[in-house]
């Protein structure tokens, strides 16, 4: 299992991470080594084993549908990198 630079570039795009050429090369090496180590899992017979995404027996936990105070507008925007008129401000989405 060896990842190519292009495969790493593809994953970086999925993860929306801009990486330098040096980072792409480094991660190709390091991720390949880690995945090679993880390949030992393929030898385990799991044909009749259910996956465990979550360890608790709790399912469909319901919250009481009762109104309660929430953050006010100013507080919610306090950490915003950019804001305007009480909203988060971002670059236009449909003008790529």
């Amino acid at each position: 299992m060896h990842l190519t630079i292009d495969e790493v570039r593809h994953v970086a795009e999925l993860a929306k991470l801009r990486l330098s050429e040096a980072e792409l090369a480094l991660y190709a090496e390091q991720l390949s080594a880690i995945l090679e180590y993880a390949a030992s899992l393929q030898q385990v017979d799991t044909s009749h084993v259910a996956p465990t995404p979550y360890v608790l027996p709790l399912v469909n936990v319901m919250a009481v549908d009762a109104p309660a105070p929430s953050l006010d507008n100013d507080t919610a925007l306090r950490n915003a990198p950019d804001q305007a008129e009480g909203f988060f401000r971002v670059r236009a989405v449909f003008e790529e």
Partner: protein
Amino acid sequence: MNKALYELTIHEALAGMRAGDFTAVDLTQSLIERIAQVDGHVKAYLTLTAEQALAQAEAADARRAAGEDAPLLGIPLAIKDVLCTAGVRTTCGSRILENFVPPYTATAVQRLASAGIVMLGKTNTDEFAMGSSTENSGYFTTHNPWDLDRVPGGSSGGSGAAVAAQVALAALGTDTGGSVRLPASYCGVVGLKPSYGRVSRYGLIAYGSSLDQVGVLAKDVRDAALILTVMAGHDAHDSTSMPAPVPDYRQALTGDVRRLRVGLPQEYFIAGVQPEVEAAVRAAIDTLARLGAEIVPISLPNTDKALPVYYLVATAEASANLARFDGVRYGFSAGAESILENYRASRGQGFGAEVKRRIMLGAYALSAGYYDAYYLKAQQVRTLIKQDFERAFAQVDVIASPVAPTTAFRIGEKADDPLAMYLSDVFTITLNLAGMCGISVPCGFDDAGLPIGLQLMGPHLGEETVLRAAHAYEQATAWHTHWAQPIVGEA
């Protein structure tokens, strides 16, 4: 009592304040002075809140003067910087959150605040709790108080070092794969990782949501039991918190381990474990046997699969959780020309190397064509690991092992080899995958004078048994009375 106030345990400090021997302000000032003396060398704290701490101490003294009391009234603690604290910067050890000031407080911290604590500050951590040494902090490396050239362990290394250097009476940490137990072991303090769902994760900035749990680093087992009693329990803000009653965990500390069945898993006593570590852990098990425990050889056959399972499951969850850092609502924004470019640039510049590595690994494991082979497969093997523990706990009450294969390693020693770093967690990640509880208790020193930790593991919601065993062992030995002597004076 000839101890300085900063040297007290929580129970000693509470007794002293209740008897009127000193005030919360005296205690807090003693710790602030200790921080000024020591923390320039140890660097446990990312953010100090000394002024606020003194105000909280004054408020605690006023409450006590008015005849009030509370379980932790006037007790100065430190909080790992991945737990949100309203009005106090919370960075997760990441540059991407350098200026993030949360609008709300994590439930675990809020419950401690309601019980009267004084918050001294926020402790250093590997970025987003991803690491085993605290070297992955985006700010600086914390140093082990026993040897400043060595790591304190991670990711709650700031909290472990803070307790060991006695710059806090105790500290909160978080444990996703060993991040409370490993620094406890490397720093020679007690580290309790509760069962998944025992403590609310609300306000804990998520790394691996099916694994994360808030834990305690403390000077002794009784202090850890008290803090757990205060912060555990169901929280409507966290649908994964267990609606199970919370006992006063101190009542479990009977000192009686007669007929307690202690499992010895052969897979945790393997080649590669430092000989002094194995010897100290075996001696600790002999001590438990002398106290009346019954030692039972057991097997957890899928142990060697836990590390690859963890690094697929945790990174997959991380890649999803960390998608929220996009430069829109909070955190660093690169100010790029288009929204997509701003995502890429803000995340590329804001995250450090290990965080990017784990996001990449997780995104790969979840990507089309690889999901079944990596992520699903890891979750299936996770089932086998959990079943190993379920079978074992049908036979025994607790399981004893080393916390880590070695004592604290040198700063920089594993920085360029992620796989070698990951191996530090080989004995701790299994519990997180199974959702069960465990503790690290000091059990000796290696030839270089570095602390060794005994791990005691228990079933889901088995905290009382784990604490009882840990306390009985601790009280039968003197390891918890040894303290590091870090350099004192200007850094």
